[in-house]
């Protein structure tokens, strides 16, 4: 059940054009090179993984000094707050520049995922990893981050190839549902869920 949720979240990030597959497609189209598209995706996934793993590190470090309940409550508050901020703030991620090296692309993906709060959604899962000694929580958390990112990578690759080879970017005009707004609602919901579970 938990693992399914982790995979589905990864797939959700993978589908979101803003999380990277669209950038990979654009790089491919610009140079008329599917190889460039395929090179870009693992790098984008790496940046995503780094962003999610950072959350795991923070949670496991925090979890080793506070009780499970405190961690869950703190996580819930962070989620609700971040979700509301996303919903209400009118600012959007800014970045200028199309011509990035692969390391720069990884950095872009890390920033984009972090601003998006990609790792935060794993908080409800991470706070449920049985408390034991510190190392166990950390390795369990990293496993979750890895599975999540793998799901994201597989989905993003499938979507990117479908758009690049068959659909064309014009599909964006109709199919680009405002996932960010939905994501903000989901963050708030997950926060409430975590808080209720902690009570």
């Amino acid at each position: 059940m938990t693992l399914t949720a982790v995979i589905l979240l990864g797939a959700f990030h993978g589908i979101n054009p803003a999380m990277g597959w669209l950038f990979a497609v654009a790089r491919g189209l610009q140079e008329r090179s599917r190889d460039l598209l395929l090179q870009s995706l693992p790098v984008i996934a790496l940046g995503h993984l780094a962003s999610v793993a950072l959350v795991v590190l923070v949670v496991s470090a925090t979890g080793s000094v506070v009780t499970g309940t405190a961690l869950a409550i703190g996580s819930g508050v962070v989620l609700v707050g971040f979700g509301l901020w996303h919903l209400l703030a009118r600012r959007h991620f800014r970045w200028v520049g199309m011509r990035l090296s692969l390391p720069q692309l990884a950095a872009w993906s890390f920033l984009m995922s972090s601003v998006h709060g990609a790792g935060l959604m794993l908080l409800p899962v991470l706070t449920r990893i049985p408390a034991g000694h510190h190392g166990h929580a950390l390795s369990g958390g990293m496993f979750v981050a890895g599975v999540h990112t793998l799901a994201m990578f597989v989905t993003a690759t499938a979507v990117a190839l479908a758009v690049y080879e068959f659909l064309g970017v014009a599909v964006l005009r109709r199919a680009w549902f405002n996932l960010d707004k939905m994501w903000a609602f989901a963050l708030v919901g997950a926060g409430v869920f975590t808080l209720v579970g902690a009570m």
Partner: protein
Amino acid sequence: MTLWTPDPTFYPSPRDAATAPPETLAYVAAFDRSAERPDALAVLDTDPGSSSYGQVVGWTDLPYTGDELHHFGWNACSSALCPYAPHPHVERRYLIVPGLRSSRIYVYDTKDRVSPELVKVIEAEDLGKRAGYSRPHTVHCGPEGLYVSALGGYGEEGPGGIAILDHTSFEVLGRWEVDRGPQYLAYDFWWHINHDVLVTSEWGTPSMIEDGVVGELLLGRKYGHRLHFWDLRRRRHVQEVDLGDQYQMPLELRPAHDPTKKYGFVGVVTSVEDLSASVWLWYEEGGRWAVRKVIDIPAEPASPDDLPDVLKPFGAVPPLVTDIDLSVDDQRLYVSCWGTGELKQFDVSDPFKPVEIGSVHLGGIVRRAAHPAAPSERLAGGPQMVEVSRDGRRVYVTNSLYGSWDDQFYPDGVGAWMAKVDADGFTLDERFFPHGDDFRGLRPHQTRLQGGDASSDSYCYP
């Protein structure tokens, strides 16, 4: 709140944009030369099926006088789909309207109404204190926000440059340039967005233009004659390209819409050697930017008796290429000859070898060609600002250049008119000729088409 699906006027590629539905409204900036009445945004009906086709159907007076509206632009455009910072769920809704003389910037809401409604005024002081600029001119929606070029410094002549405005609050965020190198004069700008390249052109500082063209400065070759290429991402000057100081005033910049291409066109108002006008191509060669003159338009001899004072010594009418526009598919270039009263159409499928395929005469300093809708009316002014519909089939022109310059070249009055040319066959639409009192004594300048046009949007996908 943002939309749930992308704004339908955003297109990923120029190819997609060319399939856009025809515009039904056109917004035209109009100004009062005497600065006694407010300038205005006039709204024209461009739907041929409508009973008010070709008429002014909306009108919004500005709150102040003396702004001298010139160019303007949208708050958002197809660049919102760019992959590195996408925000496709914002709306193309607000017109950002700078006053070239007052240095105020107005924000007008166009949603669900014909006559735009004022929502914000940015005072000259805000632009000056935050960005160090005055005389705001070109507006483009881009990755970091709204980019607004400005001709002058704040409280001083220069340098002119680019200010950044916030996408949503429209607050002035500051000066765009981090390192401006040798650049001092400013006018237009645009970019090769997928190559992280920004291009700027040169006109003059406020004192060089506001009271009319200054003969000594022109003959002394003091107006702008260079292009500047910048790193869009790092905001740094990269290269200056000099056209030669006889080529005075390279103004409007029209880069290829295809984001994989690295070339563009710039119109040059006049050469001081023979009063000819020209269009130049910029392109990349061996990692450096180069320019080449690809269109040359000679002056037309005329009797001094028929010429305004400013031209009497020369005995010729300069073509005065004051605006050019490139169709969204990069296949057609339109060139305004404001002096000789001509709009030329070029096939630029090979950008190095433009081929003239069409021409229409309207007005002109000596010719005074009439519009077929009013054949007995000798027209003053000439085709000036050109705008092309996204599908490339309709071309709109207005006739005023800039208040004090209008008065020099058309001293008996520049009048006020707007015309439409059908691109196929290149003929004037006899049903579309708002003129004279339609503009209520104001002079029409730039046109923006509802939903976007050939000079409003940048695309990140080929």
